[in-house]
């Protein structure tokens, strides 16, 4: 049943409350069909001159926009547009509840003039005036790639008088815009962009064009051939990224790598926490570029085994989160942003086990504890003959390595073997890929083999090896170790 039919059925109900409830429910459903992410606040007003019926908002949107929606029992476009002067400058959306009345011929010019007036509202985005059949058509068409993007944009900042004909034109333009971006058809893209720009507020139109350019380049188009100029940079902006991470998109690794160009972990955090469908594809394609300063692994107990198809990536409040079966990895920009430890505290590794885990790596320093005593051994002190007290400490059966600093991506990575965390002691950042491939085996040994193996398969090829001549490897340490404790 069409929106108009539902509304008319609702209006026909004799009981006032039931009538209003049904009409508003129908409109609410239509709004939801246009943009599933919108939050719809019902104000409990209906057809009020000054108070909106609904207020729409988009949590997590970087612009924190909210759009009031006014329902109107009017069909004269002129009268609807005149109502704009009473509802204030918040870029409202006026939805007539019945089809626009046919205007007499001699009022056509006035209608066009009034339409221009609606588009030239004093607010940056402008108001939209529409009616049920047109409004319903703003919903994304099935099988149109990125159709949700334009529908959402029109709901957020569409402007002008949108008739059924206009709505159909916008749907056509939406489909052809992204199709043209994919196949790099400049003239078709330019024509579609012009049509869409006419009914979108300037910032939204710019964002749309920028997104189109991202798609253009991500699919192999040359940036210099993109036909439409845009104020925003070629980097994917927050709203576009939000869209890309949530929508059904048929795209390969190269597309996601192109999208990820220039994006950082903080850009993901800015979107807000969420289990977004495409996060995994995005992260895996950009695992060598997304960089974190702190890492934590929890829950890796016993034989850790997982199906790669079940690996889950999500965005936490201030962490990027990966789930590998019973183990969870956290990536953050500060050590303080890692979640509190839930696992049982560990005692550290025997030096023999540490040797095994760091074999082939460049070790900068080790912190060793025996009871309450702690000593940090730098690379220069690893030769035990120069320090008898240190040698004795290292030889003790109770000695445990609690921290080790290794070279990863030519920077020092400090691994805490008790907390199973790794972080940069200075301002350094490490790729997601390197943290999984290098830190996990150190923190959990063989338990992390599958995770490390997974890391090798994502992002771009392996991190370059450390240059020669750096501090000696732990295997040179001769301590007469005992015991099989491991953290």
């Amino acid at each position, binding site marked *: 049943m069409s929106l108009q039919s539902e509304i008319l059925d609702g*209006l*026909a*109900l*004799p009981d*006032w409350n039931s*009538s*209003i409830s049904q009409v508003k429910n129908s409109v609410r459903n239509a709004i939801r069909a246009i943009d599933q992410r919108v939050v719809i606040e019902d104000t*409990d*007003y*209906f*057809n*009020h*001159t*000054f*108070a909106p019926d609904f207020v729409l908002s988009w949590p997590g949107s970087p612009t924190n926009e909210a759009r009031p929606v006014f329902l109107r*029992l*009017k*069909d*004269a476009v002129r*009268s609807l547009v005149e109502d704009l*002067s*009473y*509802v*204030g400058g918040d870029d409202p959306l006026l939805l007539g*509840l*019945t089809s626009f009345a046919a205007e007499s011929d001699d009022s056509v010019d006035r209608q066009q003039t009034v339409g221009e007036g609606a588009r030239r509202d004093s607010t940056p985005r402008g108001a939209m005036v529409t009616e049920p059949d047109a409004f319903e058509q703003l919903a994304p068409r099935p099988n149109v790639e990125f159709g949700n993007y334009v529908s959402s944009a029109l709901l957020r900042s569409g402007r002008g008088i949108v008739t059924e004909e206009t709505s159909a034109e916008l749907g056509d333009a939406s489909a052809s815009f992204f199709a043209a971006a994919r196949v790099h058809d400049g003239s078709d893209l330019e024509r579609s962009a012009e049509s869409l720009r006419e009914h979108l507020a300037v910032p939204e139109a710019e964002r749309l064009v920028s997104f189109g350019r991202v798609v253009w380049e991500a699919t192999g188009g040359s940036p210099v051939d993109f036909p439409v100029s845009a104020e925003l940079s070629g980097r994917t902006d927050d709203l576009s990224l939000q869209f890309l991470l949530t929508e059904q998109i048929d795209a390969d690794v190269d597309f996601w790598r192109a999208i990820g160009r220039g994006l950082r972990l903080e850009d993901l955090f800015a979107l807000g926490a969420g289990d977004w469908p495409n996060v995994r594809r995005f992260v895996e394609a950009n695992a060598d570029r997304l960089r974190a300063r702190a890492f934590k692994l929890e829950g890796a107990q016993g034989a850790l085994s997982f199906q790669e198809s079940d690996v889950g990536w999500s965005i936490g409040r201030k962490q990027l989160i990966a789930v590998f079966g019973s183990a969870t990895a956290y990536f953050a920009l500060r050590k303080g942003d890692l979640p509190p430890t839930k696992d049982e505290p560990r005692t550290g590794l025997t030096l023999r086990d540490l040797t095994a885990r760091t074999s082939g790596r460049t070790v900068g320093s080790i912190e060793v504890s025996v009871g309450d005593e702690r000593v940090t051994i730098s690379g220069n002190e690893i030769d035990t003959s120069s320090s008898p007290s240190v040698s004795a400490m290292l030889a003790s059966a109770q000695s445990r390595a609690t921290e080790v600093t290794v070279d990863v991506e030519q920077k020092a990575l400090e691994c805490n073997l008790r907390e199973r965390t790794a972080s940069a002691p200075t301002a350094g950042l490490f790729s997601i890929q390197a943290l999984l491939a290098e830190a996990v085996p150190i923190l959990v040994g063989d338990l992390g083999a599958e995770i490390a193996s997974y890391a090798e398969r994502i992002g771009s090829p392996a991190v370059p090896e450390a240059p020669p001549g750096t501090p000696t490897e732990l295997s040179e340490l001769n301590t007469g170790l005992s015991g099989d404790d491991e953290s």
Partner: protein
Amino acid sequence: MDVDGTVACDAAFALTQYRGVVRYRLVVPPLTGEETQARGAEGADRAKRWLEATCRANVLWNNPDKLPKKLQFRKASAAEGSEAKGDWFSFDLGGTFEGGDEHGQQFLAEVKMYEDDGSSLGGMFRDFLACCYRVEDLLGPTHYDRYLWITWVPFLGSKWSELQTETFVKAAIDEKDYRSATALGGAAYDSTLGERVAEKVIIVILSSKQERFLALSDGELPEVLKALVDIRRAS
């Protein structure tokens, strides 16, 4: 000149000659149906806006042509189930009161916007009373709490103190057969209903200056309404 009688010109000035004296008389052509309808819509719009600007009324319903069964009622003389247009009458606006003891009470309103002349309003007001009587008879005493008569022109000044009395309601219905058909349809007049109508009627005389100078500004109103929602919820 030899003009004899009145000649209507395009400019709406009539040229007459009477006993050799030429006079010009302004002839105002009557409003077309479309113009009347447009004026009616404008009046309903302005009344709705003013009522809601008081922050004491939510005018939920306007445009009765688009609202079957909402602001429209069958005349008493109409056959049961008749859908013929002539068997129905409608009010212009319907809504509820906000705040105070009247919170949630429902009202119907008739709006007459005749800027020039109130001479026909007396008859229209009497028609309105007949319609209110019919609604009271049809739906009982608790369905609608108030009937608002809204106009921009004073009327029936010499009878002002009588307009909201049962006597006036009865006289209005009895005066014309069509009003009697609307209200009674052949049934006897019930003074209890007439008293209810008289008590429930509110007469509102607006003026353009009142709308302009004595209402909150459009910018203030949304904020005031928001605050009132909280105040009324708390009470």
